[in-house]
């Protein structure tokens, strides 16, 4: 069953169309990376999923329940972590989670058990001070704890890692990885390495539409480009290499920079052996030789251009 289903969603701000006929689904237990440039409409889409913003047209269904703007019935399945989570600064983490638990309707026993469990998970079990004195990373972690409190079927995180230092980022990603088995995660970001680390599915939002959508390995396979990169120590080396008749056929459709060369070919192994042979014969020692894999970065650049 699909946990989240978006159909023909559109959103206009005045005459500016932010989301344009967007449709996609997120199956159960997926970790779904929602990518896009700043202002692409990621947060807008998420707010519409939560019923905090009214779509111009289209429908959203969460766990079979349609989302209604202003009402919060479908939110019982959702845990939400805003990009900059804000709490009541005069409360302590335990008090805050207690308030959240009472609002979602958990019993006092459950609240106590879950709060202790979650605060340990996010590493805040010893931080018994007012939230007003928390650092940004601590707030982000408390944000995850409150989002997971009601054991949501869908966890929506809006750029959970963008403002954190490398350690904080790693910790947040580890926590998301840990909850992967229990819940479906949708998270937006523009940090591509985060996506590669934990997502199994991605979608790239561009001009209000999905420019790319699917399983990450599958997308990579599809966009394979078969390039061979050779980097030389000097320009002279490169010229010598390019001048040899053995490689002349490859050089014609290669991209050159000052000291490096990318050969595009369909027969990567054959090319590689010819290149190595040539290099050996000419006594040229490259700095680097690499078979290019499509990176998420190159995919991203490709689709948003």
């Amino acid at each position, binding site marked *: 069953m699909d946990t989240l289903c978006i159909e023909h969603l559109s959103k206009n701000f005045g005459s500016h169309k932010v989301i344009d006929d967007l449709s996609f689904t997120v199956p159960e237990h997926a970790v779904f990376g929602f990518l896009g440039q700043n202002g692409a409409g990621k947060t807008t889409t998420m707010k519409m999923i939560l019923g905090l913003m009214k779509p111009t047209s289209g429908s959203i269904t969460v766990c079979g329940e349609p989302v209604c703007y*202003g009402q*919060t019935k479908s939110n019982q399945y959702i845990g939400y972590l805003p990009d900059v989570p804000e709490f009541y600064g005069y409360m302590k983490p335990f008090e805050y989670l207690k*308030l959240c638990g009472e609002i*979602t*309707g958990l019993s006092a026993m459950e609240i106590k058990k879950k709060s202790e469990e979650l605060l340990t998970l996010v590493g805040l079990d010893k931080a018994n001070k007012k939230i007003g004195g928390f650092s940004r990373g601590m707030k982000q972690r408390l*944000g995850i704890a409150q989002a997971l409190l*009601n054991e949501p079927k869908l966890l929506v995180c809006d750029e959970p890692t963008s403002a954190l230092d490398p350690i904080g980022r790693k910790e947040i990603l580890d926590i998301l990885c840990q909850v992967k088995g229990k819940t479906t995660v949708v998270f937006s970001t523009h940090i591509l390495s985060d996506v590669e680390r934990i997502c199994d599915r991605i979608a790239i939002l561009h001009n209000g539409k999905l420019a790319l959508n699917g399983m990450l390995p599958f997308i990579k396979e599809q966009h394979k480009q078969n390039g061979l990169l050779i980097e030389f120590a000097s320009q002279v080396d490169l010229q010598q290499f390019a001048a040899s008749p053995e490689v002349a056929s490859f050089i014609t459709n290669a991209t050159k920079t000052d000291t490096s060369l990318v050969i595009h070919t369909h027969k990567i192994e054959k090319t590689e052996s010819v290149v190595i042979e040539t290099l050996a014969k000419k006594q040229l020692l490259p700095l680097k030789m690499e078979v290019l894999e499509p990176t998420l970065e190159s995919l991203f650049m490709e689709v948003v251009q």
Partner: protein
Amino acid sequence: MRSYLAFTKKEFVENVRTYKVMIMAAVFLLLGMMNPITAKITPQLLKEFMPEGIEITITEPTALDSWAQFFKNVPQMGLIVLIIVFSGIMANEFSRGTLINMLTKGLSRSTVILSKFTMAVFMWTGSYVLCFGVSYAYTAYFWTGDGISNIAFSVFCLWLFGILLLAAVMLGSVLFKNSYGCLLFTGGFVVALFLINIVPKLQEYNPIKLASGNMALLTSEMSVSDFTLPIVICCATAAVFIIAAVALFNKKQV
């Protein structure tokens, strides 16, 4: 229901920890003490500051003078402090985005409004009772209560007017999403009530009577039945304000 209690409790904790309870209690306690004391010492003060050779006869102050101070100070200072203290009731949540977590946890928007209104009414009632209690105790200590009627009813009228203002504060807060807008709305509402009062025919319907006719009640110039219409209209307006605030909040983007 449970989320209503939880959120109301949160409001209470917030009011305590952000010192709102303390401010309200201090101001209204001070007002409560000031009323009888001002009445008591005013004639003495006047006597002291009179230029020599001028003789005026000042009647001995009575309990009525003390209550005159009460019904002057509470509507003027007390209600203004009340409105200022609660003008940020929604604005802080809007500007900081703290409500988003609550709403995405399944808290309904009407509960937010009702909880906040409940707590504001509770705080107003508490402070007002404190002020009245202190005033009453001092007044009873200094003077006898001869010639004073309808004191309880008169005090109730002013309390009800405070509730109406709090309802206006709620609507203003949702309408403008910031505290200045809220103050403007509530202030505008009171000005409108004063303007309506210019038309003699409308005076008997105007809820402002609940905050201005109190002394007339005490001296029996007006009777309790004169206040029936303003009370009904006051309650109806407050209810309309709260319902409108809920309806509007349901449509507001957070």
